């Protein structure tokens, strides 16, 4: 907000020589005191959010110290995960997290950019609004519902139709070998793609819309087709924002818990095949946390959480920086 008379403290230098009657003087003082208190109250509340964010980080670090002390850096390089012998390593969870996220992004990015293109450039306004609302509703459906649908409907669908087909046509790659179980990393990745799709397409839609009309129109005026305008004008113009949107989706996919827990199979191992069951950091936490009683076990789980916190924090920072840069640059105008 601009400095204005709204903030008397900002030094507008506007001090009319008022002669106040005593009662008005008192009233002014009371309201000024109320204002100061109100201001401090809101200020304290605004500090709450950053404090919580930092507190989560500090808390995760201190609570995971016992495990990190015990296993050292080996925690991040060991595939072992055995609550009975109390030997823990994060590799299989990190691996599963990265692979499922990769699958999700490979599917979700082209889909959501195409949806944004459809909504902004191709569809008539009324259809665009309706379809846009439906895509946004995909984001409103809770994770656990994706999980139920994934486990009872989508995984059998994968096992009967998609996986046998992939096995037959691409089975020479180790990625697509093995029995079509339905549940596994591939299924988890695909469901993740559907879940992050509305987040990416919502921002991509904003980006496409924010590209100034004159820029697009001048390209159309040269006789370019819609695709050429998108590919050569809109996308380069909004690239920063689109990358920001992709990172935002990435952050979502990395930490998504319930849907993945339902369909990934929850096995602490690394397999070459995408059909094989695996796990992610989030799914390990969801499955094992309420049953963990040994302090070292709990501490190891928290250490996994710390890894997830750091990764998502980093991804968030990048996406915020990119999006902010875009919106700031564009709000100034062309």
């Amino acid at each position, binding site marked *: 907000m601009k400095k204005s008379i709204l903030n008397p403290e900002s030094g507008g230098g506007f001090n009319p020589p008022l002669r106040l009657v005593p009662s008005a003087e008192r009233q002014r003082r009371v309201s000024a005191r109320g204002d100061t208190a109100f201001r401090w109250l809101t200020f304290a509340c605004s500090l*709450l*959010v*950053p404090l919580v964010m930092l507190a989560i980080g500090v808390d995760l670090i201190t609570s995971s110290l016992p495990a990190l002390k015990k296993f050292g850096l080996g925690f991040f390089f060991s595939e072992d995960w055995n609550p009975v012998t109390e030997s823990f390593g994060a590799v299989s969870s990190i691996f599963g997290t990265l692979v499922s996220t990769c699958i999700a992004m490979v599917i979700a990015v082209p889909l959501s950019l195409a949806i944004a293109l459809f909504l902004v450039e191709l569809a008539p306004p009324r259809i665009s609004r309706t379809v846009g609302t439906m895509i946004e*509703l995909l984001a409103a459906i809770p994770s656990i*519902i994706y999980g139920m649908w994934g486990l009872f409907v989508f995984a059998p669908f994968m096992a009967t139709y998609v996986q046998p087909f992939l096995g037959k046509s691409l089975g020479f790659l180790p990625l697509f070998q093995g029995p079509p179980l339905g549940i596994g990393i591939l299924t988890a990745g695909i469901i993740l793609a559907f879940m992050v799709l509305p987040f990416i397409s919502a921002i991509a839609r904003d980006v496409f819309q924010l590209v100034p009309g004159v820029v697009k129109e001048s390209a159309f005026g040269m006789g370019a*087709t819609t695709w050429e305008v998108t590919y050569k004008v809109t996308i380069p113009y909004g690239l920063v924002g689109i990358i920001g949107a992709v990172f935002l989706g990435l952050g979502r996919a990395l930490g998504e818990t*319930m849907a993945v827990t339902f369909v990934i199979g929850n096995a602490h191992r690394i397999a070459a095949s995408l059909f094989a069951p695996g796990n992610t950091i*989030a799914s390990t936490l*969801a499955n094992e946390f309420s049953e963990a009683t040994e302090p070292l076990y709990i501490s190891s789980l928290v250490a996994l959480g710390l890894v997830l916190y750091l990764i998502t924090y980093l991804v968030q920072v990048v996406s915020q920086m990119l999006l902010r840069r875009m919106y700031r640059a564009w709000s100034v105008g062309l």
Partner: protein
Amino acid sequence: MTPMKRRPQTGRRAMNLLVTIWAAGSALIGIAILFWIIFVVVTRGLGAVNLAFFTQLPTPPGVPGGGLINAIAGTLVLTLAATLVAVPLGLLAGVYLAEFSEDSKLADFSRFSANVLMGMPSIIVGVFAYTLIVIPLGKFSGYAGALALGILMLPVVTRTTEDMLRLVPNTLRESALALGAPRWRVTLAIVFRAAKSGLITGVLLAVARVSGETAPLLFTALNSPYWFHSLGEPTANLTVTIFNYAMSPYPDWQQKAWGASLLITAGILVITLLARFTLREKKS
């Protein structure tokens, strides 16, 4: 003057058509997934929803009948508790960012933190509530669950409040101030009223967001087969019940999980649409 050579059009046109089809197809895929999920939830859930579902306590495995009244009540209580804590705090924080902050570095950091916290996996917030409340108290409790949900709501309310307050024109504030009203009254009585529908939307969206959360409740509120007594105990809730029942081998429990899924999905979609409607009504 040499005549201009015509560039061949066919390839470009074909490419454009291809992209158009791809874009429309992607939108169709998105819509298809939405309706597929809703269809499955409705058809499978309807069979489980009856009077007993809303009025009775759960039965032990193998015993037919029973309902999820305790989980329904628990979800309502947890969501309400989180809302009562997070909404006032979030509103006030939003007021500071929109009205007083003057874009200071600290306010910028606060805004940035809110965005980061919104993107933070909810299970991490669950871990935080676990180490903060469950470990010191030595037992799972509804308080820990409500805290986790409240933390998830806070940044959503803060950010929407700020955005909505910024939409209120400055002239409105200035005219109220000119009448001699103090700042706090201007904010609470004038600016809030002008931004009312936006603020309601923000709160509704935050409620919709947390009422479907499962991950932060798994090891905080846990679950319970009993009637809700106090937030100091493990508290039954719909989402964790869905998880436990779906993973159980009993068909009866799995059907109850579908019933609970229907309830949650319907509730959230209604709240979300309501929120969008409130805002659109205001705009037009």
